[in-house]
């Protein structure tokens, strides 16, 4: 017996919802969450004052732009670090391998907050790196690079032995094997976790405010202290980050569809 098309149910977890049905459900959940929000606000009895905060919109915009720039730069650098370290972890030259492993464990095992302090007040000081922006980007890259290295390593490991053997049999060099066989297949595996890491990186950039970098979080803090409107500033702050992270998530969902092929 054929079940009639449903507004709420898919036939199975892997089937694709029609666009109309999908947006209907999206609208429904958005409305429900909004209602809950409104109710909570009413109950809390808060007085909102957006005008004071609005006067400082330039500060917010500047902070947002800095966060965007720092994140983009750190994303690029950490991708390079991640690739290099993932390959180093597979190196046959043992010192390189152990160095890469130690790096990953050290970075993943300590809080970003501590890393920022150590890198800024010891390492950056030692090499006379005074530019906070550059120091911040490098710190964030080193932090995120360790996570990306693990993501990439999992991607490389997901390629079966038979594929590597096949590449070998047709006479590809090691570099060519990575370029033509491993990477194109690994991208598909890696994409979801890479998006997650990318979104984390953007949010983690907020910690750079502690070395006095005027990014979005620092701006929100400043505005909050000028205007005494803590809540308004932090709501704007949250929205500012969503404005950066949501497009990434949506974009990678589309990419995932494009890279999808049966295996």
């Amino acid at each position, binding site marked *: 017996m054929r079940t009639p098309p449903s507004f709420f149910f898919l036939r199975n977890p892997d089937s694709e919802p029609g666009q109309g049905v999908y947006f209907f459900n999206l609208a429904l959940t958005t409305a429900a969450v909004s209602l809950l929000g409104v109710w909570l606000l009413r109950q809390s009895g808060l007085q909102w004052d957006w005008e004071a905060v609005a006067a400082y919109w330039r500060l917010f915009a500047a902070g947002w732009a800095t966060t965007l720039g720092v994140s983009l730069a750190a994303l690029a650098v950490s991708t390079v670090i991640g690739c290099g370290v993932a390959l180093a972890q597979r190196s046959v030259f043992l010192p390189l391998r152990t160095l890469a492993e130690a790096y990953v464990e050290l970075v993943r095992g300590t809080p970003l907050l501590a890393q920022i302090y150590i890198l800024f007040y010891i390492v950056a000081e030692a090499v006379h790196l005074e530019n906070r922006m550059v120091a911040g980007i490098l710190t964030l890259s080193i932090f995120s690079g360790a996570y990306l290295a693990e993501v990439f390593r999992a991607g490389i490991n997901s390629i079966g032995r*038979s*594929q590597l*053997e*096949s590449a*070998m*049999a*047709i*006479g*590809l*060099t090691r570099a*060519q094997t990575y370029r*033509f*066989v491993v990477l*194109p*297949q690994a991208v*598909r595996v890696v994409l979801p976790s890479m998006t997650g890491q990318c979104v984390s990186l953007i949010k983690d950039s907020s910690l750079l405010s502690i070395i006095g970098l005027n990014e979005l979080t620092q701006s929100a803090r400043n505005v909050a202290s000028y205007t005494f409107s803590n809540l308004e500033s932090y709501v704007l702050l949250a929205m500012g980050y969503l404005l950066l992270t949501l497009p990434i998530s949506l974009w990678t969902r589309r990419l995932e569809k494009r890279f999808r*092929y*049966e*295996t």
Partner: protein
Amino acid sequence: MKLKLTNLARSFGEHKALDGVTFEVENCGALVFIGPSGGGKSTLLRILAGLEKPDSGEVQINGERLVFEEQRLQQHRRKIGVVFQGFNLFPHLSAVENIELPLTAVHGHSPAQAREVSMELLRRFQLAAHADKKPAALSGGQKQRIAIARALAVQPQMLLLDEPTSALDPAMTAEVLETIELLKDQGRDFILATHEMGFARKVADQVAFIAEGKLVELGAPGAIFGETAMGETRRFLERVLRW
């Protein structure tokens, strides 16, 4: 093509996959390896393909000794076409791209040249209609024939086929065997490991019976499958041909 193996041995832990294989053929032609699974056919083919290094022994192809060093092996692999039991096509590439990859990446063809060579082969194998499909959209028989086309496209010195039909149903097996028969008709040198005894008998110029890591017998198909075969060979064939 002349092939000479001397005392070739290879162990995996305690297991002696190859236990001193020696033989010489003046003209390879269609050489077929038969014998029980785990007897050493695959290991022998993989060594000839440059995918595995022997523990000891020597391989000579046309009088030239095969050097088992990575650089030299890479050169060797480029002159050999290999077809695996599991097809081993690249799943992210279409059928025609699978054939093009070694041509453009390794053999210096321009993309246009590679496309031409690949499409010509696909047409000859009656696969042209499937050129743009990804492996997942193809049947096992089609995949294996594309794998053969990929191995053939680079004009290899010889082709090594490791149980190419063992993962296929009878109809697809027939389809792949027909393709291999085409190779025979073209007079290509190839070595085929197979359990298809009828086909081995029909297509082989020479048959080698390999069991327990040793070459038991090498001879014309008429001799191996006939009354004059040695005891061990005969017992094996009687058992597998009985049903």
